[in-house]
């Protein structure tokens, strides 16, 4: 029996806790996350409010749970958008070469040339600061790295003999792409997808912090952090818990990504 790698164990536990928080938060929270209670403003963690309350007396645990849902939803959808669109363009670009490759790569380079957050800010100004807008703009930004990675992998696979063997067998290019090229891109894609998940979560929090994310009063970790700045000296728990949630989730995702890379890379597997 092989020992479970440490990074898989810690990453898995952190991500399970995050997912549980988000899922439970969708159906049940200890208090209504929006309900104000002016009798208990800025109260420290206690038996009735485990993680304390904010300046309006809203229960912080309830708000964190609702915010977890928002974070998980946006980052998951961002990853889905980035990976599916990026894989499509990457495979087409790498497998067809010629002019489709040139057009896709030029546009992709333009996307890559913009600083990510700046580009998102610009897009959000046009699209409006909604959840859909965030997903679309972040998805577009991260798509460019997916295109790069997939195209590189496909270029390497194209020269492999099994792709040529498929052509010799009389298989169409579309079939070869689907059956032989795409499955072999999965390993690098899985690793990239986990990193994108982390970046997207952080970017969503940053945008919320800057006031361009999901608008208050609906809670996200970013805007909770942003709102708590003013009370740093009176209610330090308002900063600690959202910050801790963000860090722990990112750590979990990155550790899980590391573990996945170790498992999917056959060279690493031999050494283990």
């Amino acid at each position: 029996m092989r020992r479970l790698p440490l990074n898989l164990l810690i990453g898995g536990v952190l991500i399970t806790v995050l997912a549980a928080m988000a899922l439970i938060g969708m159906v049940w929270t200890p208090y209504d996350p929006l309900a104000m209670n002016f009798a208990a403003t800025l109260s420290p963690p206690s038996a009735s409010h485990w993680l304390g309350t904010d300046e309006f007396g809203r229960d912080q645990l309830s708000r964190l749970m609702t915010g977890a849902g928002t974070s998980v939803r946006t980052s998951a959808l961002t990853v889905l958008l980035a990976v599916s669109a990026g894989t499509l363009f990457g495979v087409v670009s790498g497998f067809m070469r010629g002019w489709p490759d040139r057009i896709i790569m030029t546009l992709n380079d333009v996307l890559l040339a913009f600083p990510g957050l700046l580009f998102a800010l610009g897009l959000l100004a046009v699209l409006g600061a909604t959840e859909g807008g965030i997903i679309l703009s972040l998805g577009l930004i991260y798509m460019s790295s997916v295109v790069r990675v997939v195209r590189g992998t496909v270029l390497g696979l194209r020269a492999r003999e099994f792709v040529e063997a498929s052509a010799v067998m009389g298989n169409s290019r579309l079939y070869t792409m689907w059956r032989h090229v795409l499955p072999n891109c999965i390993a690098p894609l899985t690793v990239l997808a986990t990193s994108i998940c982390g970046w997207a979560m952080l970017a969503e929090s940053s945008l919320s912090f800057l006031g361009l994310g999901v608008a208050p009063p609906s809670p996200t970790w970013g805007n909770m952090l942003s709102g708590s700045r003013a009370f740093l000296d009176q209610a330090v728990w308002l900063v600690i818990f959202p910050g801790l949630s963000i860090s722990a989730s990112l750590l979990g995702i990155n550790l899980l990504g590391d573990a996945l890379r170790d498992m999917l890379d056959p060279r690493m597997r031999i050494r283990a």
Partner: protein
Amino acid sequence: MTTAPLLEIENLSLAVPAAGLTIVRQASIAIAPGEIVGIVGESGSGKTMLGRAVIGLSPPPVKHAGGDIRYLGRAFSSMSEAELRSIRGTGVAMIFQEPMTSLNPSMTIGRQMEEGLALHGGITAPERRKRVLAMLERVGIGADERLLSAYPHEFSGGMRQRIMIASAMLLRPALLVADEPTTALDAVTQRDIMDLLVELTREHKTAVMLISHDLPMVARYAGRIVVMQNGSIVEQGLTSELLAAPQHDYTKRLLSSLPTRGPARPVAKGDALISVDKLVVEFRKNGGLFKRASTKAAVRNVSLDIRPGEVVAVVGGSGSGKTTLARAIAGLTTFQGGSVTFRGQAMSNGDAASRRDYRKHCHMVFQDPFSSLDPRMKVGALVGESLRALPEIPRSAHGRLIEEALVDASLDPILASRFPHELSGGQRQRVAIARALVRRPAFVIADEAVSALDVTVRAQILSLLAELQKKLDFACLFITHDLAVVEQIADRVIVMQDGVIVEEGSRDAILDNPSHPYTRKLLSAIPLLEPTTAGGLRLKWRHADAAMQ
């Protein structure tokens, strides 16, 4: 010889404790000054690790597990790291297999070669340059000052290996460890390099530990041969004695798996199945902003016919255009002139239907079974995929056909549910053969199909191919640089050089009575082990007259 040994390996064992493996077991070899000792074995026999241990370059997971190495009577285990370093280079030097990667691509040849001299010699810079140049001239690269400021990528593989030899010999080592020094090179270059290596080491009285899987090559140059299997030395002795009367079973097996000439078959009759007429394949070199695009002809005006049921071998050195020819016939490369005709239908301007027909009847076996099988598909699916293009075969029959094909290729049908990485190299090549033959093709192209395999495995695959060819009667175009393979399997031989066919004829005519100088040179580059009446083997030189041309 009565002189004290230069290097003694005594009961040396090497192990990888982390994996619980012993890779060299109780090996004992003594090498006298100036002697050439060949270490022969298949992949995984521990021969490379033994060579690495001698120069003290064992990779980190490999641990010393008993025994010792003595250099001029002094044990390695009693020496400090500094003493060991002083022995490396001047005492023991090494030449690696891959000249492409063993030279630093970002350093000029001159600086790279001088490095060793600067470390060990205490010689002034101008003197070093003089010595490097003299050595470069000696190995046949030339004595031009400008060579010193050239980078490795400006030289061909053979030239790079000459440079490697030159830089190893600059320090006049007492022992040279040569690990597969010519495996990456074609036959003619291989012979030139080996001749040079032997000449140079003889001049400097350097002993050589020649590690290779190529028994005839080793037999030609080494005075003594050590045979290794699974980490143990199974037999060692004088080359002539070992060849004439091998003692150990494994040595006998190694010797018997050398290809021998099959019986000549009657010349195939009938219309040509594939007819290639004045084929031209050119590669465009893309021009840059300031560089005009240029074209290089890889195949020039090549014409050949392949009749049903015939095995035609195309031989030639690297760069002769033989692989390009095969790829053009397979339809993997577009050609610029001429035509390829299959059963009277031209492929160049053939309509889609005839192209599909051709695809159904033509298949290819590639060189490297590690990369010609999709790592994410199981063996059954890999073989079955070949049937996809044949709609006339009902899906319900696929399972049976796949099983039959696997059995034909001497594979257990149970393997159908395995992934390629779970199989050995030989098994993978069998899967590739099963995949090619499951649709009963009329024509199979085998591009160096056995070059990547170990000697004994190669013999098995070759006889399997020959047997299946007899049974299924497909025509076969066999691309190879290995004339021994030609000897065993071909009916007809085509010799290519620089993109043109220089000679063509029946196998026996080409091998026994070559007329073109290039063919003679190719043949002379390959030593032949010939059976003697006593049951052993002896070394025979083919067309030795052409050797020095």
